[in-house]
């Protein structure tokens, strides 16, 4: 029993999210030198232990990770391949609880361990209230989400689904990708937006008194890297969920707009927040940062259509692009870099689009 659950939930979760974990591993353990790693994490923990506002933000991020784990488990249960899990309800309740708790903790484990360590640091540094809050949050949230899974597996006729957004106008093909993210990738979109707005808040508002352009650039590039998920899933949407679109008499330029228009819409929250909170920038710089985001996603889309559709190849391309972006953005050659990225995107898209063939998963 345990082996089956471990294969269907735990292994597949870490396999499906390898890129996600690689990104966060790099962010938390690869971005600083080994010698200052402990100090880096201690100061990170102290920052949220001593400020209730930051602690609340951290709880929000962990809650999003909870939603990610639970959504994954629910998707497996709701899929055709997961139908056999109906048999689990014949097992004793106690055994079921133990099984689901272990499965859930295996998924939530990285955050759970980090949270417990942070609580331990909190007690040592006399931030007792924050440390207790951390412990209570970890235990209650993990318990609540385990209960949700237990409830779902014992109530097959009442399948829970996240609410969907219905917009009161006809669905234009230009917005299919936008609808895809707001209906079928809600948790990813929500996590992405919460993450990027938090990054912008930290650097533009929370850190306002000690503003540093290099620090902003670092946060901006992390935001850009996180958004690399959008082209990846957009291409996946068109090529897997709607492969027959290639049989439609639609010009290549309009096919490019099927990506660009949704990207613009999906980046509106960041653009809005940048214009609202970035007092240190001129309007031209704000505009350049926003357009650069769209140009970057356009180039990543074109890269996906030119032989880099596998996740690891794509990740390499993403990191490479961010690395090159550092130079141009550091010297504030925004418009030049936007033009270069757009030209490369056009070239790769025109050459690669009709030669593309979906690889077997």
């Amino acid at each position: 029993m345990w082996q089956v659950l471990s294969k269907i939930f735990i292994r597949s979760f870490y396999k499906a999210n390898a890129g996600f974990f690689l990104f966060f591993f790099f962010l938390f353990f690869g971005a600083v030198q080994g010698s200052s790693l402990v100090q880096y994490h201690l100061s990170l923990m102290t920052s949220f232990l001593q400020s209730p506002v930051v602690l609340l933000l951290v709880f929000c991020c962990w809650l999003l990770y909870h939603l990610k784990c639970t959504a994954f488990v629910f998707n497996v249960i709701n899929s055709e391949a997961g139908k056999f899990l109906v048999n689990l309800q014949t097992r004793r309740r106690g055994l079921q609880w133990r099984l689901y708790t272990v499965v859930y903790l295996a998924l939530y484990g990285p955050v759970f361990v980090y949270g417990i360590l942070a609580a331990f640091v909190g007690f040592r540094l006399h931030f007792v209230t924050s440390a207790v809050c951390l412990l209570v949050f970890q235990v209650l949230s993990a318990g609540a989400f385990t209960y949700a899974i237990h409830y779902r597996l014992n109530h097959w006729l009442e399948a829970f689904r996240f609410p969907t957004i219905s917009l009161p106008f006809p669905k234009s093909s230009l917005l299919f990708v936008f609808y895809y993210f707001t209906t079928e990738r809600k948790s990813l979109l929500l996590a992405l937006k919460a993450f990027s707005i938090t990054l912008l808040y930290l650097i533009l508002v929370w850190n306002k008194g000690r503003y540093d352009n290099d620090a902003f650039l670092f946060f901006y590039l992390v935001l850009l890297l996180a958004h690399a998920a959008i082209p990846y899933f957009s291409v996946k949407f068109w090529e897997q969920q709607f492969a027959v679109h290639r049989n439609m008499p639609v010009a290549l330029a309009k096919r490019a707009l099927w990506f660009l228009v949704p990207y613009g819409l999906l980046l509106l929250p960041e653009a809005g927040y940048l214009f609202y909170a970035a007092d240190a920038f001129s309007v031209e710089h704000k505009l350049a940062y926003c357009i650069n985001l769209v140009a970057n996603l356009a180039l990543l889309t074109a890269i996906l259509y030119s032989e880099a559709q596998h996740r690891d190849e794509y990740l390499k391309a993403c990191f490479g692009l961010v690395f090159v972006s550092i130079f141009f953005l550091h010297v504030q050659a925004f418009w030049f870099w936007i033009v270069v990225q757009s030209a490369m995107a056009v070239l790769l898209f025109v050459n690669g689009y009709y030669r593309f063939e979906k690889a077997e998963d």
Partner: protein
Amino acid sequence: MIWAFIFRAMLGLHQYKKNYSGRTILQVDHLQLSPGIYWVKGENGAGKTTLFKSIAGLIPFEGRIEVNGISLRKQRSAYTKIVSFAEAEPVYPGFLSGSELLNFYKQTKGGKTPAMQALAKSLSVEGYLPNKVATYSSGMLKKLSLLLAFTGKPAWILLDEPFITLDVDAVAALHTIIMQQHRQGVSFLISSHQALALHEPYRCLHVHQQTIHPEPYVAGAL
């Protein structure tokens, strides 16, 4: 004018080759298909779906595919306007309704609403067109994909395993629609493991040993 063009729409494959991981799946030096109905036969994995996907423009290939000189590679929009395809196991975005998909097809492929309504009625899909595709059963999805393939004014329609998952009434209705459309000048490539139950003559193409063998006799005409 367009009907005159459709009536003589020849489908040609020239120096066609499709490889997967360096292995040749299908190779056709020269094949010219005159208008008509073709039953594409072949064992599982012979390359029927690969052939259909290549002709429909879904996957890249080496060589040339043309309908009356209109090249898939060079005049893609004009070509895909007259060649339609229904997949064996259709997949559509679950958040769209059948009506929204139909509108999308009508906007790109053209076609008149009354004609589509009549087809939807024949295939018994009009009742659930307003519902989201995610709620469809495999049979309903199959009927929708067939309806979409008939949208516009195609000269050739490629139907990959069109009869699987369909109920008995729908199978009969589909045979009738194929014959009606054929009388209006539409040609068909139909892959199926069962012989076609048509009242019209049709030819057979056998996909075997990585190539296509046109069979000399004419079948059908029950």
